[in-house]
């Protein structure tokens, strides 16, 4: 896809994030918006997936380890055709298949149930191990938050992945610098993130602007070309990206826009188009 086409998709994904969280009156727009380009590029270019056959055993896998950014994953899957875009408005509603955190058995295209931080990356490592063991050539991608990686399980998983040279695994850290209680430095920073993953035997790629498709594309290509080690892509992103009043605001980690804010945000995205 051209960058313009991708940007158009990303705008629609962002709208879907706002529609979902607004309708739910809850949810996590901030980290969904920071990771929008990452998920858009993965599902529209990088990964081998088929919305008509979401459980294809040969498909590439994506694990949203920072599961609270489900609004972003759902909006991306809907844009990719896994389910109707209209359903995004049922997010977090009783009886909806769009749960507050992803459920692999409810939602087409969701490869792993996640939400409790630190657990998704372990499952991704398991998928990569299974692929190696049974000779499948699919790749597995895991998206972690920069706050999430304060969880010890992340480093247990990283240790195993590095020691087993899982070059079919790509971990992406969405380094938007904010977590619920403040900046990651204020809370309990995992920096230097790249150095830590290097120490765990990962090949590390630093993406200066993780909301830029060209830079992300190069990073994914480098990850795919890397043999003998898993890759960690550290992407520097802007939390709340694309909605002026949400950008770099810690308060928008887990808060839904009210009617007025929703209208303003949607208008901003329309103007951008």
């Amino acid at each position, binding site marked *: 896809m051209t960058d313009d086409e991708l940007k158009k998709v990303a705008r629609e994904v962002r709208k879907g994030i706002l529609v979902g969280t607004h309708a739910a009156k809850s949810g996590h727009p901030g980290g969904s918006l920071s990771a929008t380009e990452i998920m858009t590029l993965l599902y529209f270019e990088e990964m081998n997936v088929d919305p008509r056959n979401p459980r294809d*055993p040969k498909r590439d*896998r994506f*694990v949203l380890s920072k599961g609270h950014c489900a609004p972003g994953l759902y909006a991306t899957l809907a844009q990719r055709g896994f389910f109707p875009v209209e359903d995004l408005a049922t997010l977090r509603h009783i009886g909806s298949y769009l749960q507050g955190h992803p*459920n*692999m*058995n409810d939602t087409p295209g969701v*490869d*792993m*149930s996640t*939400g*409790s931080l*630190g*657990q*998704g*990356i*372990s*499952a*991704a*490592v*398991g*998928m*990569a*191990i*299974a*692929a190696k*063991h*049974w000779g*499948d050539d699919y790749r597995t991608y895991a998206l972690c938050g920069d706050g999430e990686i304060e969880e*010890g*399980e992340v480093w*247990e*998983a990283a*240790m*195993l992945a590095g020691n087993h040279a899982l070059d079919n695994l790509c971990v992406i850290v969405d380094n938007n610098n904010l977590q619920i209680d403040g900046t990651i430095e204020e809370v309990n920073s995992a920096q230097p993130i790249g150095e830590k993953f290097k120490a765990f035997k990962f090949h590390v790629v630093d993406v200066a602007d993780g909301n830029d498709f060209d830079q992300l594309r190069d990073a994914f290509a480098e990850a795919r070309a890397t043999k003998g080690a898993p890759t960690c892509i550290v992407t520097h992103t802007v939390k709340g990206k694309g909605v002026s009043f949400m950008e770099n605001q810690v308060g928008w980690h887990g808060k839904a826009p009210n009617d007025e804010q929703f209208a303003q945000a949607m208008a901003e995205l329309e103007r951008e188009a």
Partner: protein
Amino acid sequence: MADVRKVATRDSYGEELVALGAEHDDFMVLDADLAAATKTGKFKAAYPDRFLDCGIAEQNLMGVAAGIATTGHRVFASTFAMFAAGRAFEQVRNSIGYPHLHVVIGATHAGISVGEDGATHQCNEDVALMRTIPGMTVIVPSDDVEARAAVRAAYEADGPVYLRLGRLAAPVIHGDGYHFEVGKGVVEREGTDVTVVACGLMVSAALEAADLLAQKGVSCEVLNIHTVKPLDEGLVVSSAAKTGRVVTVEEHSVIGGLGSAVCDALCAKHPVPVRKVGVQDVFGESGPALGLLRKYGLDGEGVARSIEDFLK
């Protein structure tokens, strides 16, 4: 029972995994640096490329097992009960239980019969924890024959299975023709005065107690409820209806385990007086396993005393 053959169910587990490995290559066995103790080392020796040591990292062990299971392959994840059900509880709940993935958790060294390692390693809470997870099957095999059958049944199961296994050599009480079915309790001995419901190592203790009490004219009906979840409510209720009194015996806390599961069923369907024999809301301690079982009233004589006291 000195002349009875004794086998630790962890040995049964390791050996049956090897046998299963000879028939199937669609599963992996994972451990967390305890292969020598959990006996998955036997599988590792036989099929090194199908074994994965995750190191001392049980949370990741469970998550990796879940990830493998999402690919449609089967997986056994082994460590001590304390770390499988305790440390990694939330991983088991959220990464295995919630998506209902077919992971078999082979949890060894359960209960106070761990012995000398003491309280930190004697998990008396695992059945209670695992029983609360929706869709989790909880099996507590009583002997070698049952443990081997349980390994095979767990392999064939749908969804997560928690296999509770022991370190101590347990009397082999079943013969080769023994029929094992998940969720189906076994009447080990018929009786009329009291129903004794046991699981795991306590089945042989309950049978020994029944022998001792028979000499005093007390007739015990001994039920082996190897599957604590889903519980064979029909068998428990019908036996309770017959005898009118129930004693549960488990090498586990009396809070939340087999005794609680039996009480849940009886409360709803046929309330009768129940005495729960087990570890009485205390931590264990170091010592030889048989000595600890005696001290905590979980040998045949201790169980007989509790039953007798209950019937007074």
